[in-house]
């Protein structure tokens, strides 16, 4: 369980910067009154963020990933159970790999 001072310092710097992003953004944006457009922008950020995430993730994977996403999404639309949706996605992926994709 070694802890080198320079590695520890680098990790703490990363942690500090990350907490600044998490908490600093909220603190600053709370102190200033946001115009309606910025307010709408922030409220609408989550879905496009994940749409971009998924598009980028799928663009870096093969066709099997895109195909396995379909039953995963369908399962979530039907049952709204994250665990089940993820298991179905991974199972679909395993099936596609087994089929040679």
């Amino acid at each position, binding site marked *: 369980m070694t802890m080198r001072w320079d590695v520890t310092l680098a990790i703490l710097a990363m942690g500090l910067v990350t907490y600044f992003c998490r908490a600093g953004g909220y603190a600053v*944006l709370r102190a200033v009154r946001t115009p309606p457009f910025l307010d709408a922008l922030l409220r609408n950020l989550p879905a496009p963020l*994940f749409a971009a995430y998924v*598009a980028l993730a799928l663009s870096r994977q093969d066709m099997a990933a895109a195909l396995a996403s379909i039953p995963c999404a369908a399962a979530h639309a039907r049952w709204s159970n994250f665990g089940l949706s*993820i298991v179905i996605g991974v199972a679909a992926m395993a099936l596609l790999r087994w089929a040679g994709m």
Partner: protein
Amino acid sequence: MRITFTPAGILRGVRSGIPLLLGIAPFGVIVGVISLRHGLSLAETLLMSGVVFAGASQLLALELWTNPPDILAVAIAALVVNIRMVPIGAALSFWLDHLRGWRLWGSLFFLVDHSFALSVAANRKGERDAGYLFGLGLFTWIGWVAATAAGHLLGSVVALPPEHPLFFAATASFVAILVALWRGPRQDVPPWLLAAGSAVAVQALHLPPPLPLLVGAFAGATLAAWRETRRPGARA
């Protein structure tokens, strides 16, 4: 609208986090394995996962890792990847504005994309207990630290090929989250398509991460905000 912060809300958050572990754990194991490969000890890996708690920035920092580490380079890597979190806290103001002290700053410490998205979805469904966000974040944090530790410990044993189906769990969790945020084709298809298309286009220009993600997210959100604000009363 009265916002509370109760143990029952925290427990509801924890329960919502349990299935997410299926998506987080494989990613955490990978980060643990890579930490080991770059010479980080178990204690250093635990410290990084504990205080940074952001997989993408941990992975990027590890890619830039030198011996001794370039403190400025890894701090900049963390800033660039995590800058997307700046508006996330503000977007949760419907709960956070009602909190003070450790409840507020602790909730912000444990804030990640997953807990953010699920909290937005929970709020839309009528959840009014901000403990939900704290419980979900805390549980996710414990899972993340445990998974990276497991990855570090099992480093040499976990030699799964990159195309192993288990690694699809991370993408699957994002797909499920996206479905949870779906409101309807008219509201969501144009901004989502713009977000996806612009992110992939920026990536094709070989611009470094997290620019593709940031451009996609803000392009989609800008379109959604523009459509919403030009039609008063059409708010979500």
